[in-house]
């Protein structure tokens, strides 16, 4: 029986706690970005850090993403462990050259002599009514770049545990924060130490035997909702939360699909050239003889991210997921 009452905490608060604990544990950890100091970040994830650790540890930088990441590279070269905040998904694009040409390659370029333990936090995805350039799902770009880890939490506890692991990693990590889950709540005990989650392990969020929904980040709660709704149709859906897109947990995903024999990949990112194509291929390569139907994808449309008043038509929702599940060749069973 617990003696301390569990309190609801938001994902944003869990991220703040992870940053604060990391900074307290390791003086090499430096937070930097636009508005992260006095303001505490536009999503308040760095709230209070400048006050607690000083502006040298939590620094408001000039407004230039390539410069932010480029100087973070130099700081990491000197032994610091920078945690960079990119204000929004689409604002991270100016930093792509530093990310792709240097952050992702420096360890390899120097045969391990110069690793870059940099965490790049990127709020991503839609569903918050953001105007243009504030709702992109940019994970496919990062996944396509060898040398980066790509991590994204879907729960409050994972937000803490995965961010701690990302900051502790000696490799660069692109840490994708689902914007619309920032204010999602979960109960946890803020007095107790929270668990650090290993990078590269998927987790089964809901067990089921009819089909597997493979998803991550902002689409995890949508898939869980779809799984509940699917019960009315007689489908018992399993939901796998990937948590890490690089490295990819083939074992957990394949084990689930071998159990259920059917799979749908769900994400907000566009389908063409998106993560779902890679995931479907990997599942097919590993589970071909267990599959009762082709692996389907429910993705965002292949369009520039829509204006906020139309975004609900773009984002994968419960109905679209259930429609896909319905197309998994159930006739063969009857």
């Amino acid at each position, binding site marked *: 029986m617990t003696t301390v009452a569990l309190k609801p905490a938001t994902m944003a608060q869990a991220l703040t706690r992870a940053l604060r604990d990391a900074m307290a544990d390791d003086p090499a950890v430096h937070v930097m970005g636009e508005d992260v100091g006095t303001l505490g970040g536009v999503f308040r994830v760095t709230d209070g850090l400048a006050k607690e650790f000083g502006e040298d540890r939590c620094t408001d930088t000039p407004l230039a993403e390539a410069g932010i990441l480029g100087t973070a590279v*130099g700081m990491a070269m000197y032994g610091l462990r920078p945690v960079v905040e990119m204000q929004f998904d689409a604002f991270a694009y100016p930093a792509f050259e530093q990310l792709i040409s240097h952050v992702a390659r420096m*360890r390899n370029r*120097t045969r391990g002599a110069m690793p870059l333990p940099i965490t790049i936090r990127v709020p991503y995805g839609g569903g918050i009514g953001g105007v243009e350039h504030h709702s992109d799902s940019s994970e496919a770009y990062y996944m396509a770049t060898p040398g980066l880890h790509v991590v994204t939490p879907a729960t409050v506890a994972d937000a803490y545990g995965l961010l701690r692991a990302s900051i502790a990693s000696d490799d660069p990590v692109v840490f994708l924060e689902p914007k619309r889950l920032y204010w999602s709540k979960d109960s946890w005990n803020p007095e107790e130490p929270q668990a650090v989650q290993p990078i590269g392990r998927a987790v089964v969020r809901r067990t089921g035997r009819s089909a597997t929904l493979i998803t991550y980040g902002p689409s995890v709660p949508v898939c869980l909702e779809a799984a509940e709704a699917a019960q009315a149709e007689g489908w018992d859906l399993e939901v796998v939360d990937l948590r890490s897109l690089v490295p990819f947990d083939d074992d957990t995903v394949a084990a689930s699909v071998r159990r259920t024999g059917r799979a749908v990949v769900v994400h907000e990112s566009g389908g063409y050239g998106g993560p779902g194509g890679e995931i479907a291929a990997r599942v097919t390569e590993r589970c071909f003889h267990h599959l009762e139907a082709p692996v389907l994808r429910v993705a965002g449309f292949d369009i520039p991210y829509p204006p906020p008043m139309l975004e609900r038509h773009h984002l994968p929702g419960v109905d679209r997921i259930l429609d896909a599940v319905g197309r998994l060749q159930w006739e063969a069973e009857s």
Partner: protein
Amino acid sequence: MTVMEQRGAYYRPTPPPAWQPRTDPAPLLPDARPYRVLGTDAAAEVDPALLRRLYAELVRGRRYNAQATALTKQGRLAVYPSTTGQEACEVAAALVLEERDWLFPSYRDTLAAVARGLDPVQALTLLRGDWHTGYDPHEHRVAPLCTPLATQLPHAVGLAHAARLKGDDVVALALVGDGGTSEGDFHEAMNFAAVWQAPVVFLVQNNGFAISVPLAKQTAAPSLAHKAVGYGMPGRLVDGNDAAAVHEVLGDAVAHARAGNGPTLVEAVTYRIDAHTNADDATRYRGDSEVDTWRAHDPIALLEHELTERGLIDADGIQAARDAAEAMAADLRERMNQDPQLDPMDLFAHVYAEPTPQLREQRALLRAELEAEAEAHAEGTGR
């Protein structure tokens, strides 16, 4: 009450504070003409030992450029971007730094790395093509040679800033070309350096061309050194073929940074005597007469003239410098003519601290291919 009637409540007889001039730009402005030492009264102030040291390094550097270019013709280097004509900048940039300082070279600056003490074979690894960086950057505090233009500049700023945060007495000196000053990373690095007052020195070697494009198509600035003023740091303009002048200006900038006074942008006006690389044809974009004009302003000739005129070096001294350069070239030639020993499995060794499961699979695939290859080879040779 109308707005006009309210006016007295908010009308300011003086402009708001944000209208006041914030920094006096005058002290930041570069000289109108490149600063020179050799052939001027200032030369007498320079330590003769430094002049002789610079001379020996320039002669060695010229020979290094010639040898590396020759190695491309023998197929021992994939490509070589020469700094013939720019040796004064390359050498001075290395000599003004203390051991604890850091040098951030571009792909053209292998000579600066060598002058800082790096083994030439290691410095040329990228250009030979056996790996991307042939040295541990921490050993001589030389960052990896950087190919994407100007992207190493924010690294230098970040490193210098980190050293300052840790309380270490470290200056970073970053090299870039005239073409690189058009890149966004140049701008962002200058801005971050000045805002943070980072102990960093930027040396722009204005060698006249970005491959084929002349400076006039690159910028409309009064000079590249003038760009410093916009960032709030001093700009210095120096004759890049005058080794004593470059050494003095860079030395001052390093001392300025070390004293906590922040960054400096130095533009050294020089000329790329050779083509962009061995693969380039410079006759398509410039005439011989222009090159001849610059040959007459050769950095080695300028310094040799100063030394001999003032009796600071004799024929034996000159010969000794040339002999040392020949010995370096012979050693480089001999070692570069040996085939590097490569292990293809290294391709997977350093992508991450630990290979991902996916890379482990791919590594196994390559290993199997190599074993099959070796087996076929063994059968083919009857062993």
